[in-house]
């Protein structure tokens, strides 16, 4: 930890040195002094690290060392392996011991590469919350940790070499002094003044420090104040105590505040979290309650299995929130099993962020969807060969997970094949649902009595806005860029008797054309030979 912190200190110096990047420096200084302080950066990093380790051990236990269905997990372990080549061989051994030794003894651990790991970890939390089921929520990385991660990331942008230490130390000493004084006086941080002060003191301090800090910063186990630095220089000592100016009520208040913030970091929710999908799609993330019952199982899949996109409409008012749709789906039961959560993978919503068309993540993409039940055509010989060695993991945290070969019919409860030799549409597709009702009100005659259905329909079916089509095309295109196997767009009615996706059905070619303008190529398939076969029967 001390080594890491030394790195942080050095990188902070680098930051100060690179005054051309004033904004970044100001942000970092501002953050350290007004919100976190250096001591709390240490605490925050410890907190972040401990949470990460606990989470890592939890996920390791849950997945039983099988990360094939978690590309993000693979990325994390690859990064860890790059940091230390012994990581992967050791992974098979005592995981807890490995983790402890790895993080506290690895010489190559720097804020820069750990930042990559933490970023990936936070993404994993968002995309695969199933992995974190059962983990105390306090151990999930939160927005406060994200601030720490971001700051470490900013700090780590500045490369340094030994030769530059002297100048950087000069800058640190003067800038810290100035900034600290300003903050304690209740003033803001004046970067121009900092620069002037740095210029004035640089020459003098440089002479004093040049010999002392030629090669390494490692003697500094803790952060020094500028006053400490001056004392050290005079005494030619390199033991730097943690020392904060005493008697400052502002500082005490500030530290108390920070303590509260650390304890209630959830209150620091900044922006609504989102994920970047491909080049053009920002996927909004939202919290969904899930069915945490033993009888509600789900299947983890490798995204490589996906070959098509299924277009739906939710047939709810366009103002419906993703949570509302999740609530409906949580009550749905298929084959005696309550659904795990919302069945669609992505929702196109005009109300999530009023005034814009948003893409909201539904069921995480690595979990088999629940939106395309019905008939699928028999697999071709080529498709059978592709799926022959593919497996999925089905179960939940209560009953554990079973690895199921995709083409196997041995486990009826997890069978993915239909009687005609077709593969589950839910397994091989992403479901994109446009939130809204694009079908007309209709009536159904039952025993000679007319009954109305689709009660949420508008008097006139609304036209599908170009923005919605464009957004749908962009998501589809970005999904294809991630996985070139995805080459087909189908309407929901490809699989079964349904009016879904309403009048969007007439716009599928427009979606394909819009995607083509972004460099993607999709086939539109409206009909399914198996369905026709069934209809004929």
């Amino acid at each position: 930890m001390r080594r890491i912190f030394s790195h942080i200190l050095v990188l902070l110096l680098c930051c100060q040195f690179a005054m051309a990047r004033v904004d970044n420096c100001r942000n970092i200084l501002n953050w350290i002094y007004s919100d976190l302080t250096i001591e709390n950066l240490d605490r925050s990093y410890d907190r972040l690290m401990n949470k990460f380790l606990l989470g890592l051990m939890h996920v390791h236990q849950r997945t039983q060392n099988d990360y094939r269905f978690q590309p993000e997990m693979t990325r994390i372990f690859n990064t860890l392996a790059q940091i230390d080549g012994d990581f992967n061989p050791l992974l098979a051994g005592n995981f807890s011991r490995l983790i402890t030794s790895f993080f506290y003894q690895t010489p190559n651990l720097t804020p820069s590469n750990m930042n990559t790991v933490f970023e990936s970890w936070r993404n994993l939390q968002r995309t695969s919350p199933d992995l974190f089921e059962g983990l105390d929520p306090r151990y999930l990385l939160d927005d406060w940790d994200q601030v720490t991660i971001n700051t470490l990331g900013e700090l780590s942008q500045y490369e340094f070499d030994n030769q530059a230490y002297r100048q950087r130390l000069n800058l640190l000493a003067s800038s810290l002094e100035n900034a600290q004084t300003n903050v304690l006086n209740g003033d803001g941080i004046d970067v121009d003044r900092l620069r002037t002060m740095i210029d004035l003191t640089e020459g003098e301090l440089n002479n004093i420090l040049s010999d002392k800090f030629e090669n390494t910063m490692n003697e500094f186990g803790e952060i020094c104040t500028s006053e400490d630095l001056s004392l050290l220089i005079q005494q030619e000592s390199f033991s730097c105590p943690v020392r904060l100016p005493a008697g400052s009520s502002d500082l005490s208040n500030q530290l108390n505040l920070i303590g509260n913030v650390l304890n209630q970091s959830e209150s620091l929710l900044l922006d609504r979290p989102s994920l970047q999908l491909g080049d053009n799609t920002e996927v909004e993330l939202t919290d969904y309650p899930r069915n945490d019952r033993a009888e509600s199982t789900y299947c983890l899949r490798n995204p490589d299995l996906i070959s098509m996109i299924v277009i739906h409409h939710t047939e709810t008012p366009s103002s419906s929130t993703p949570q509302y749709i999740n609530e409906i789906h949580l009550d749905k039961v298929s084959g005696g099993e309550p659904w795990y959560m919302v069945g669609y993978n992505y929702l196109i919503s005009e109300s999530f962020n009023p005034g814009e068309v948003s893409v909201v993540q539904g069921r995480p993409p690595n979990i088999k969807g629940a939106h395309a039940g019905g008939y699928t055509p028999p697999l071709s010989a080529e498709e059978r060969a592709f799926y022959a060695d593919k497996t999925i993991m089905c179960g939940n945290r209560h009953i554990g997970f079973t690895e199921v070969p995709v083409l196997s019919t041995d486990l009826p409860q997890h069978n993915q094949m239909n009687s005609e030799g077709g593969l589950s549409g839910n397994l091989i597709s992403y479901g994109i649902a446009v939130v809204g009702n694009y079908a007309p009100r209709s009536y159904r005659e039952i025993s000679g009595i007319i009954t109305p259905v689709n009660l949420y329909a508008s008097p006139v079916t609304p036209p599908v806005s170009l923005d919605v089509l464009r957004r749908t095309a962009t998501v589809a295109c970005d999904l294809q860029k991630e996985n070139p196997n995805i080459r087909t767009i189908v309407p929901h009615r490809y699989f079964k008797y349904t009016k879904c996706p309403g009048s969007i059905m007439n716009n599928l070619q427009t979606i394909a054309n819009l995607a083509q303008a972004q460099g993607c190529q999709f086939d539109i398939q409206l009909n399914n030979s198996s369905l026709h076969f069934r209809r004929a029967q």
Partner: protein
Amino acid sequence: MIKLLIDMLPKALLLLILALPFSAKADSNPKIKSLMKDYLIALGTKDKKKLTNICSSKYIKLLQKNGTLDKTFEQQKPFDQNKIEFDIKIQKAGRTPNKYFVNIKDKKDSHYGEHWYVVNLEKDKFLIDDMVFFD
């Protein structure tokens, strides 16, 4: 003998607990079917008052929205109340207690539709409360 009874008691209780959901299901099915029959009769006879007894106020509002109920009434033809027959599917909600999804179809139809009535059990009375689209 007493010891045997005492030994059996937990098992008996367990069996009772396990059997309860089934007994509830067995009870609710005919009641829900009867409710849906009443619903059809109320629509067929254009009986708004009867509808208010078997549907929640939320569902009534939904029916009245955009003049749907009036248009439904306009289309009704004479029918024989004694010859009402329909198929019914009932699903207990996966999570919410006392909530059922109900789908009905004409005996002659080959398949059910994708719209499900939401029926809630409120104070021992079943009420049609909503309609959802399950695709």
